[in-house]
């Protein structure tokens, strides 16, 4: 039960931070952090694929509704949730995953975790910005937006995840 509450809290916090903080930073179109992806990244490792996809969908809808995104966030978040298990398997590896409930840097190792985050955030940003541009007319501009936004998102998520309380083997906060 504790575990469910914890994930709902992460979910809500991610959406609120995105809508009320990161959407209003307005630094530059090249640096638009899609921070809420953290909720997909931190979903439990053993979560059923279908549930994960549904969670991604709900996450996207929540952000879309609150920020007037008209479906963009839903498209990207559902796709990111869909590819997560595969990315987790390939980049983190099965042996590092058992006994880890929530994939956190301390649980799976910083290097691995960073690679896992980078790939998923890149997938998310690529889908988001290409769908937003809806044309290949200014493709270099779109690529630059993907790169800048992905890097800022990865840094923010890495920073945040490093501060989250983690239970590696004792499972205090994940079970």
């Amino acid at each position, binding site marked *: 039960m504790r575990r469910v509450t914890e994930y709902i809290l992460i979910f809500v916090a991610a959406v609120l931070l995105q809508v*009320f903080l990161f959407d209003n930073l307005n630094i530059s179109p090249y640096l638009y952090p899609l921070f809420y992806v953290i909720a997909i990244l931190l979903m439990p490792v053993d979560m059923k694929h279908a549930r994960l996809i549904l969670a991604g969908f709900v996450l996207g809808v929540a952000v879309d509704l609150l920020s007037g995104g008209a479906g963009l966030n839903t498209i990207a978040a559902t796709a990111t949730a869909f590819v997560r298990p595969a990315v987790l398997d390939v980049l983190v590896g099965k042996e590092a995953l058992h006994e880890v409930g929530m994939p956190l840097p301390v649980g799976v190792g910083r290097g691995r975790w960073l690679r896992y985050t980078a790939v998923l955030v890149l997938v998310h940003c690529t889908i988001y910005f290409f769908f937003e541009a809806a044309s290949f007319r200014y493709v270099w501009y779109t690529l630059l937006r993907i790169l800048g936004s992905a890097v800022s998102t990865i840094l923010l998520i890495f920073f945040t995840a490093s501060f989250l309380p983690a239970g590696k083997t004792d499972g205090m906060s994940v079970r």
Partner: protein
Amino acid sequence: MYKLVQFFRKYYPIFLFVLLEVLAINFYAGSTSHTRATLVATTGKVTGWIYSVASSVGDYFSLRRDNKVLLERLAAAENRVAMLQSAAVVDTVCADSVQSRYVFATARVVSNSIVHQDNYFIIDKGTDDGIEENMGVLSADGAVVGYVHSCSEGYSACVSVLNRSFSVGGRLGGSEYFGSVYWNGTDPREVILSDIPRYADVAVGDTVRSAYSLRFPSGCLIGTVSSIDSSDDGVYYMLRIRLGARMNALSDVMLVRFTDYDELNGLAGEHFADNAHEGKKE
């Protein structure tokens, strides 16, 4: 039959994924600038008050600059009044016909964005304060920043200049050449002025002002020419215009209503540059 069931059991996440994506893409593809602005206006009711609290704190940091701008505007307005008063003495016959067709109001921006390709901002006034759809929005120093798209009682969602469906007629300073001003979704400091013929005299630094617009009075500053290019077919100039308004630092705005908007829009709305990009999606 059993095999079919097993097949579904094995692959149903994929079917679920495809179904949800089709739903989302379908909704996104079917959305126009109208859908999005309505969405922004609806959620604006919920999020609006949170934003107004946040922005009332932020406002203190821009007070000094805003104050200066307002004083300058006031001085210019006083000058104009003085000038008109002296003219009216001589020419009382015209007094009736100079009655303004524009009604002004002020509001405060509570939420703004420049990072998307179709940006909107929310202001803290709505139908209760006499705000109507299609009012033009100007920055405190009088530069074009957008127009009101939809209103609730207390808030209004406005289409920003930095929205690919925004467009306004623009005239080159010092000449009679005019074209259509729009944003191509790239640089948030610049918009494009197209349809200026190649034989026009253009120089970097020329001002561009609104013209033949349904929403804005003629002569509102849009920006200054920052670079000169030719269009793809080489017949026209493609001018990059540095915006006069600081879009990433909007706080107080002026709203202007053209009192004959509905009449003129109903009669010949499609001939105005304001409606050129309406609802269009690349």
